């Protein structure tokens, strides 16, 4: 993946580039908004990582300008501004995701991957289709899950959680992503509340079945693997 890091703090930028290269990506650094604008429009990048506060053209203006110019390259905001209003601003100008500093590198990596995937599978499956992973099926109309021949009863939130996993199959999903997308919670609880919910879900869809679909990824979160 070709990733453009737009960040004026050189230490952060270096650390991000280093980490992304270790993961096998091509990372390029741009330390100001104006240069980033021309680089992003000319270079063929898969994902942009944009700091909101830049010395000249700020991140919001940059992404807005890119979108106005017709660029659809996925952009992920990185910012110390983490209020809901800030996130909304970021998404409104055309950002695709918003990550609040400080963050774990694994979190960033998971989100970049998710963004890239989403783009590759452009024209996402319509809501009426039945997501399917191995022998696990989710009927969005009847709100039913089925594994093999067995119908699994799910509570509303469990259903949403499972749907999220199935739509991000083979992607690392972090706890923060789950909190944000499934529960719409934008802070980190002190307790392992997500782990408990995931473990309950696993108990319902994995226990007694083979192979297991949801796996823990150490230091990052979870992944639903399609063994097929």
């Amino acid at each position, binding site marked *: 993946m070709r990733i453009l890091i737009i960040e004026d703090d050189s230490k952060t930028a270096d650390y991000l580039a280093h980490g992304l290269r270790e993961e096998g990506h091509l990372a390029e650094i741009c330390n100001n908004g104006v240069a980033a604008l021309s680089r992003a429009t000319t270079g063929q990048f898969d994902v942009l990582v944009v700091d909101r506060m830049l010395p000249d053209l700020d991140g919001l203006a940059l992404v807005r300008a890119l979108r106005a110019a017709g660029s659809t390259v996925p952009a992920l905001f990185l910012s110390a501004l983490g209020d*809901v209003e800030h996130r909304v601003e970021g998404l409104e100008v055309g950002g695709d995701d918003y990550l609040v500093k*400080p963050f774990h590198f694994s979190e960033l990596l998971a989100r970049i991957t998710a963004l890239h995937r989403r783009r590759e599978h452009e024209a996402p499956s319509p809501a009426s289709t039945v997501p399917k992973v191995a022998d696990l099926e989710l009927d969005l109309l009847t709100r039913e899950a089925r594994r093999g021949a067995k119908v699994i009863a799910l509570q509303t*939130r469990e259903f949403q959680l499972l749907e999220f996993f199935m739509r991000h199959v083979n992607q690392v999903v972090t706890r923060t992503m789950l909190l944000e997308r499934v*529960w719409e919670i934008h802070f980190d*609880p*002190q307790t392992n509340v997500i782990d*408990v*919910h995931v473990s309950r879900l696993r108990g319902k869809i994995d226990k007694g079945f083979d192979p297991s679909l949801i796996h823990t990824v150490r230091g990052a979160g979870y992944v639903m693997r399609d063994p097929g």
Partner: protein
Amino acid sequence: MLGGSTFRRALAIALIAWAPGAIVVTIAHTKLSRFHYDAGRQEIDFLEEELFEMVREHQAEDALLGDRIVLEPGDDSFYAFLARYVRQIKLERRQATEPRPALDYRLALLGESKVKSLPVEAVVSIMLDEVPDEFHESLLELVAFRADAYDDVALAREVTTEALLETYRRLDDEEEVGECALLRASDGRILASTYDEVLRERRPGRSLRLLQVVPPEEIEDEKYWCLVRERSLQDGGRLKMGMRFDDQRAVIASSRLLRNLVLYGGVPLAFFLAWLQTRFMRRFLYTLRLAAGQQAKGDIRARLRTRSLDPDLATAARTINVTLDQLGHTVQALTRVGDSIAHDLRTPLSRLQGQLDLLRRRPDPELIDSVQAEADQILGTFNALLRIAQVESGVKKQGFRHFDFAETVADVAELYAPVFAEKGVEFLWREATVSAEKIGDRDLWLQALSNLVENALKYTPKGGQVELVLEPDGDRHRIVLRDSGPGIPETERENVFRRFYRLERHRGERGNGLGLSLVAAVCDLHDATVTLGGELGLTVEIVY
């Protein structure tokens, strides 16, 4: 300036100065009333109306405070002023053997023939016979003639008992607290009095006296003080004028009161009151300066003295003290937070350092997790601190939106229910209300409520019980969160809302001591109240 000191003292109403070739009158009082100036043994009456006649002649109809009127040689008012002035100087000279002022300009007058071109001081000199007459006889005649003419007018308007009684009757309709007056005719008959017997009993006297008055028993009144002065009137009548002090309150003379005091009691009384007020003001300023000085030196306990001050100043002093109290609390809180940050973060940071050290020698995935957790904990503390500060600053109010409070509480309950189950704590969630539409910040409530629920989860032992109830309370809503944990001693309940405050028995446990601070800040932001209670376990009650 030539011998103007006596006159200047009298200029509470008009401030007069000599400019080259002219007299400048600055209006310092705009009320039309008679103004008496008592200069020791002589008494000169000066009619303020006269001054205002001049004002009308020279300026617009309504002269304002601070307006300046320039009287120039050739105007009638110019001579009127000079006539009075010279008369006064002459009277004073007769009694006092002060040396005559040097007459530097005497020679300069030689050859002058028109008043208009003379400096004012020169004209005064001429009138005081300080310029050799033989040179300026005609000039002197002109000035003297006008001076006499104005004197006559002034004398005809001397105060009479009748005139005063007339004024008094007018004033009587609008009772002025704190004033008392007694007017006698020349035969001793009492013509008018405000404060019954009080002033009659007293010996007559011209000087200003402060008397303690003990009212007769049938008058249910407390003892009070009275500032009294008596003066004789032109036709033999006498006026006794007093000012009553229940306390210092009466000293706050309204402008009307002051005017009347000037009218009846004379300038000294007015000056005395002004002096008293000045003294209060000075003491106030002194105590203010003292407190400010101590504050500047770092003594945040310094306060203003509020006793024995004039009531308005005492109120001001109390207001300042309240402000200082609040400031003091803030400073203390800041100091405490600063100390706590230093203390609470040093421990995890040194642990972090130690773990990194170990890691260098022996790579170990578990140790990495532990390092990560430690760093997360530190960052979490900072985030929580920032969040609390942000909430307390009130900027979050800008993000207030409509949201369903009942749904928010349900979200939290639903989020934690499985965690309680896993720990083996019974979690009872009772929702007595379906929807609770409110304007606020859903995110902050989610976090505040999560903090409370996590506390309950943390401190309630296995087999215990936690109950969460949402119910209507008038047009508000009440959340009750009850746990069967160890609770918080009553004496500690206020403290736990402070940043970094942790109960002794919880020291060393996981947690940053900021959870309840955020709850308090969020409740405060939303005008909600939070109270801690409970006999066994802890009960948190929020009314929003």
